[in-house]
């Protein structure tokens, strides 16, 4: 199982630098974002504790397999983006752009599956106002979906700049910042998936 090329052997060795990757501003933005999501997760868990039966019934209507597919899609996109950062460091900007576009394609799977989920729930008559579970479900996953769409936009912009030679091994601040933002989106989903879909 080796979907990433061997020429880029060790992500840690290729980047083992005492420097913080990306811009410091993006890290404060990431801290702000993950704190916001942490509060939303805690609110979700607290509301769930108030009416456990309602939440368990709501979970039965969701599609856990769609959640699993989405998790795999986001993790794969993150792997592709990480590979893109490494390729840029090796002065292979076209390869780097290719990996980023592949990441965008994988992330698009997430968007399609998530829209399908919303569509299915809509057809079944569930919406924001159905009950507390669906209100927090749509708010939480919808807010995350907006971040995924923003992350995809960043990746496309960065990939286009890579193709124009806008980044290099010594000039990768924007690329690394965009990549870290994308990994944050993935990180949030890694917690969202079990809380919403699989913990009963």
């Amino acid at each position: 199982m080796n979907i990433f090329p061997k020429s880029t052997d060790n992500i840690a060795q290729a980047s083992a630098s005492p420097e913080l990757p990306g811009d410091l501003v993006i890290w404060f933005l990431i801290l702000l974002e993950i704190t916001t999501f942490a509060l939303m997760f805690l609110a979700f868990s607290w509301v769930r504790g108030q009416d456990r039966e309602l939440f368990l019934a709501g979970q039965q209507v969701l599609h856990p397999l769609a959640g699993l597919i989405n998790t795999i899609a986001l993790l794969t996109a993150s792997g592709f983006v990480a590979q893109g950062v490494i390729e840029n460091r090796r002065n292979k900007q076209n390869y780097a752009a290719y990996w980023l576009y592949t990441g965008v394609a994988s992330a698009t799977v997430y968007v399609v599956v998530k829209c399908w989920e919303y569509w299915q729930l809509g057809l079944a008559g569930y919406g924001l106002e159905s009950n507390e579970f669906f209100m927090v479900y749509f708010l939480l996953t919808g807010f995350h979906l907006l971040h995924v769409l923003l992350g995809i936009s960043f990746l496309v912009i960065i990939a286009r700049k890579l193709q124009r030679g806008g980044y290099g091994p010594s000039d990768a601040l924007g690329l690394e910042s965009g990549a870290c933002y994308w990994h944050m989106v993935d990180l949030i989903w890694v917690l969202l998936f079990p809380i919403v879909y699989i913990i009963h």
Partner: protein
Amino acid sequence: MINRTSLIWFILILITIGSYILADISTMPWIAAIILGLAAIKGYLIIDGFMELYGYKGFMRYAMNLYCPILSLFIWLLVKQ
């Protein structure tokens, strides 16, 4: 030889599928604890591996690496009630 990006990705996928299967076994609180613990491990792999904070010794790495375990613990305390 498997490169590190592939290895991290593969472990993340394995943990994800493992968590998914585990959730079907039981609804006991300790299953939720294991699933949240696995999510915290996934967070660590993303932060140190994909975000490349491995080797960085500043505040940001500690803050990021504490995020998943602490949040998972609080969520479990709320969920197990």
